[in-house]
């Protein structure tokens, strides 16, 4: 494709549209949404359940596409994102915008008509929150961008639960809080080892603006309420011992990794291994806890 002269209009490949939806991020979104639905105390018709998860995935994909549409200039400046369809010039911005808006409207409409309007309403809020509050408003303005913006990624378990029950309860609210409070340590661990990338792009991530020491301290601080939100469903009687034991052990390990990151200093030629370990484990941690929640509910 690179051999085609730039004067020739080349339509974007379907794979580029797929890449626009950030499929890897979608995996976690779909998983937490599915677990939120399976943890609900009522059974769901398999077709309606499948449709709800599909809508969550499409909504997340739409938000990802609109994020990439808005941030094409930033993505071009960062090594990690420079090969995405827009900065690489494989797609026009207009195509990305139409695709994102179309997918967002379709996902919400399908959720409302096939599942229920409570789930559709929360899905709408989550898409708008990610695109308008996080991408447009916060990301380039404040180092607290991912703290508030993290709420966008915390909606799927709430949507999954609402899809099954048609309402919101304390357990999905705690799951929302868990993902919301998990996001800062997760992203700041990443930001510590890709700091140069963010600095080059002018994104005010905490390590760029406030320095590493403050970032490390904030990772430690946010881990405390996150640990409480993770373990709380057990003593509150909302889950059984399977979730309780796994959540306690998994959270203890998370806290240990976070403490190592919080109390260390970067050395010259530092490979940032503890930060990379915390980042990788934080993903596994979320899968582990949500998986345990479902096992606990169905065991």
């Amino acid at each position: 494709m690179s051999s085609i002269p730039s004067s020739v209009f080349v339509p974007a490949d379907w794979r580029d549209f797929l890449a626009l939806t950030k499929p890897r991020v979608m995996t976690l979104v779909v998983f937490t949404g599915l677990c939120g639905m399976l943890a609900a105390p009522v059974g769901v018709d398999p077709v309606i359940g499948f449709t709800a998860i599909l809508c969550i995935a499409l909504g997340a994909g739409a938000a990802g596409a609109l994020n990439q549409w808005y941030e094409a200039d930033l993505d071009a400046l960062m090594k990690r994102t420079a090969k995405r369809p827009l900065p690489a010039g494989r797609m026009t911005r207009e195509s990305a915008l139409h695709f994102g808006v179309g997918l967002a409207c379709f996902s919400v409409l399908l959720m409302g008509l096939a599942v229920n309007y409570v789930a559709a309403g929360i899905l709408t809020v989550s898409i708008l929150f990610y695109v308008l509050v996080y991408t447009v408003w916060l990301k380039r303005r404040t180092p607290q961008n991912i703290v508030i913006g993290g709420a966008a990624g915390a909606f799927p378990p709430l949507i999954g639960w609402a899809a099954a029950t048609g309402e919101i309860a304390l357990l999905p609210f705690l799951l929302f809080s868990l993902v919301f409070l998990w996001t800062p340590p997760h992203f700041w661990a990443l930001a510590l080892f890709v700091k140069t990338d963010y600095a080059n792009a002018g994104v005010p991530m905490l390590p760029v603006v406030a320095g590493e020491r403050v970032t490390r301290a904030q990772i430690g601080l946010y881990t405390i309420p996150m640990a409480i939100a993770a373990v709380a469903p057990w003593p509150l009687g909302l889950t059984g011992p399977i979730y309780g034991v796994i959540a306690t052990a998994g959270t203890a390990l998370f806290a240990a990794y976070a403490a190592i990151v919080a109390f260390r200093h970067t050395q010259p030629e530092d490979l940032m291994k503890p930060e990379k370990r915390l980042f990788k484990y934080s993903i596994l941690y979320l899968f582990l806890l949500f998986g345990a929640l479902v096992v606990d509910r169905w065991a």
Partner: protein
Amino acid sequence: MTPDDSNRIRAKQRARATAMALLLGFLVVLIFFITLSKIRSGMH
């Protein structure tokens, strides 16, 4: 535009059209089953 360019663009358009056809086919099947589910549950 060379014939080679034209062929590549055609191939890309064909791939997109196939992907869109598969997607629409999937949606038809999905909406059919959603309708059956709604009928079964008495449209609650």
